[in-house]
């Protein structure tokens, strides 16, 4: 009897390791939500006025202005390149090909409020839900959902509130985070599982902000403080969601540190300057970008205009989001997020949490017959999954 029990136990252990069949995935679809950093041309469909990004010198490095707020490619373009899919088209360009996803980002987008001629985060998510029938359920659950939003909320807040108290700052951040929370849940409800978030940069270091403050040496405090507060709360939100939502997977990229590194030690990162923008007028070229005042070598600059990165800086960001270590982008980089099997909730660092997460999925073994059946099911399933998932082990 004892030997049967121990034999039972010995076979059961490795089988129970595989108890939770991970569903292999290989994301080939990218949905993009955000503001002008990610806008690939939606703004021009929403604005009656001239949209600067639709005209030179925007796009100067690639020879074509596409509505992107840069001299060339933006971060979603590079991520699409690395994923091996075509650049993601703006959703409002209705004739475009959306087989690999869609870009809902619009310049001037915010989380809160209702600014004109744009789509807030909630409106972007609604737009996604309206168009959801363009993609299968499988596609939607395997896809990566990329978010970058909030900078305009905080830039406006800093403009309108000169010295808010700590409580006031936190209250505003709470409002923003609460809305992001509900919008992510809406996407999750529609089947989304893989969420990639880029946090906010030190907003006080943007050329347009420094120039407006009159002090070109120091980054402006309040916008950067708001960004930091937001970033901490946003990461906490990710951790919370990964506990609340089954199968929730995320990648949180520390854009703040990347920009800060490049502003402080520009040359280490191959930029000539992290202070002035490439295109514009004023002490830091922070406003009024036009063909008359664009630099000759955008790749030497971090900022193309007062608020947006050059193609070269976007490329760095793409590399970092895609393949850097967890202290830069964690707990998974996008390359790992892309192939992470579905149904794996989160990489938990705490054994008690791992146990708690496992409990609902206990299966009671009634008899040896069950085990044998499970054993053969698992072996077939696992072999199939293993072959498909070999790239996952990277």
């Amino acid at each position, binding site marked *: 009897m004892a030997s049967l029990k121990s034999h039972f136990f010995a076979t*059961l*252990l490795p089988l*129970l390791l595989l108890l939770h069949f991970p569903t292999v995935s290989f994301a080939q679809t990218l949905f993009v939500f955000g503001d002008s950093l990610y806008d690939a041309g939606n703004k021009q469909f929403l604005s009656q006025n001239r949209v600067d990004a639709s005209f030179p010198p925007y796009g100067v490095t690639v020879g074509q202005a596409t509505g992107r707020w840069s001299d060339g490619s933006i971060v979603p373009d590079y991520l699409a390149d690395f994923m091996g899919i075509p650049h993601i088209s703006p959703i409002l360009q209705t004739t475009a090909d959306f087989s690999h996803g869609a870009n809902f980002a619009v310049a001037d987008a915010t989380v809160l409020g209702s600014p004109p001629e744009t789509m807030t985060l909630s409106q972007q998510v609604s737009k996604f839900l309206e168009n959801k029938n363009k993609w299968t359920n499988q596609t939607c659950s395997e896809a990566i959902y990329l978010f970058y939003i909030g900078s305009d909320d905080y830039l406006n807040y800093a403009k309108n509130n000169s010295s808010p108290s700590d409580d006031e700052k936190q209250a505003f951040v709470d409002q923003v985070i609460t809305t992001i929370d509900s919008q992510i849940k809406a996407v999750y409800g529609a089947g989304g599982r893989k969420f990639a978030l880029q946090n906010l940069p030190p907003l006080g270091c943007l050329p347009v902000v420094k120039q407006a403050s009159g002090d070109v040496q120091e980054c402006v405090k309040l916008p950067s403080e708001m960004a930091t507060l937001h970033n901490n709360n946003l990461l906490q939100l990710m951790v919370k969601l990964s506990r609340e939502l089954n199968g929730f997977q995320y990648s949180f990229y520390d854009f703040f540190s990347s920009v800060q590194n490049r502003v402080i030690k520009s040359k280490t*990162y191959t930029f000539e300057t992290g202070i002035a923008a490439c295109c514009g007028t004023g002490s830091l070229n922070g406003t009024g970008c036009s063909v008359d005042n664009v630099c000759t070598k955008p790749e030497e600059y971090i900022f193309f205009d007062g608020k947006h990165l050059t193609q070269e800086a976007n490329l760095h960001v793409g590399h970092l989001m895609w393949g*850097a*270590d967890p202290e830069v982008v964690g707990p998974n980089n996008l390359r790992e997020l892309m192939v992470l099997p579905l149904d794996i909730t989160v990489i938990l660092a705490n054994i008690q949490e791992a*146990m708690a997460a496992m409990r609902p999925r*206990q299966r009671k073994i009634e008899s040896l017959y069950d085990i044998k059946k499970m054993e053969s099911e698992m072996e077939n399933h696992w072999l199939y999954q293993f072959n498909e998932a070999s790239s996952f082990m990277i």
Partner: protein
Amino acid sequence: MADHCNLVSVLGLFLVLTLFHNPITVAGQTIPAVALFTFGDSNFDAGNKQTLSKSFVAQGFWPYGKSRDDPNGKFCDGLIAPDFVAKFMGIPIEIPAALKPNVNVSRGASFAVADATLLGAPVESLTLNQQVRKFNQMKAANWNDDFIKKSVFMIYIGANDYLNFTKNNPNADASAQQAFVISVTNKLKNDISLLYSSGASKFVIQNLAPLGCLPIVRQDYHTGMDQCYEKLNDLAKQHNEKIGPMLNELAKTAPGFQFTVFDFYNVILRRTQRNMNFRFFITNSSCCGVGTHTAYGCGLPNVHSELCEFQRSYLFFDGRHNTEKAQEMFGHLLFGADPNVIQPMNVRELVVYPVDEPMRESWEPTTSTTVQASDSSRGYEFY
């Protein structure tokens, strides 16, 4: 029973799931709080070259450091093997470059410099001998003798001697090669003795990589995608053969001399021959650079290098230096692997071996019997 099963399965699941982002836990016998000192060439250089060179040092700039967004003079996209060994030894900081001003050397330092050799006078660099003398200069101000005696000294040197020799003597015959190997290894022995008389007693000597398999060598000597440049592999093997016996002798004659040899040659060779077992997609070319094997000029301002998007698929970051992912593997192997990888003991065993005690095991050459004996081991370096 059911609860017990679940605990074990959860542990197993937890283990599987945390393979990527390992919380590094060092359990077991207490490791003494000692230092790690490294000597040698660019493999262990933690930023010394930047201090010694007047010209542009590409390793201080993006895309070096890409994995951590921190270009700091290391020849890698992130941390190097000594950093991981230090972590496992419980050292809370990265081992700093000794030649940089204002660095915390309380738990060790790197005296290694890119382009370092054993023989000759390398430009804007230091021979091993000069590095040891530098260590001596800094000794009095920083570390006491007892601390040094208990600390670990890692050395990786010689690659540049053979790379230069082959470049300058492309048609060297067997006896010329032999003679050169003898002069190089004799110098190594002398320099190790010098370090020993400076107070060091625990030595980790990393033997040479298969130099012919480095992407920059394959590229420069046009070996194609599948072959290594065997002439350089031969030289490395000849050099490596002499290391073990030399150290055995030192251990017999020098009281308290303790050593181990890390078989880096076969560690790299295995990864080039069975790359998928070690989860490297590409081992014959570099992640960053230009040329047939993308091996030249990573980070140089006048070279438009390619840069791979996922450096964790590569064994080599640039033409001759390993990625952080590989370096982490080396750290694990150095610290805890079996004698077929590092012998006669690993760093974990070396660091707790009592000082002043003679060694009870010696380095043994790998014969077919020892290979058979060690092949029965689990081969856990596959993880």
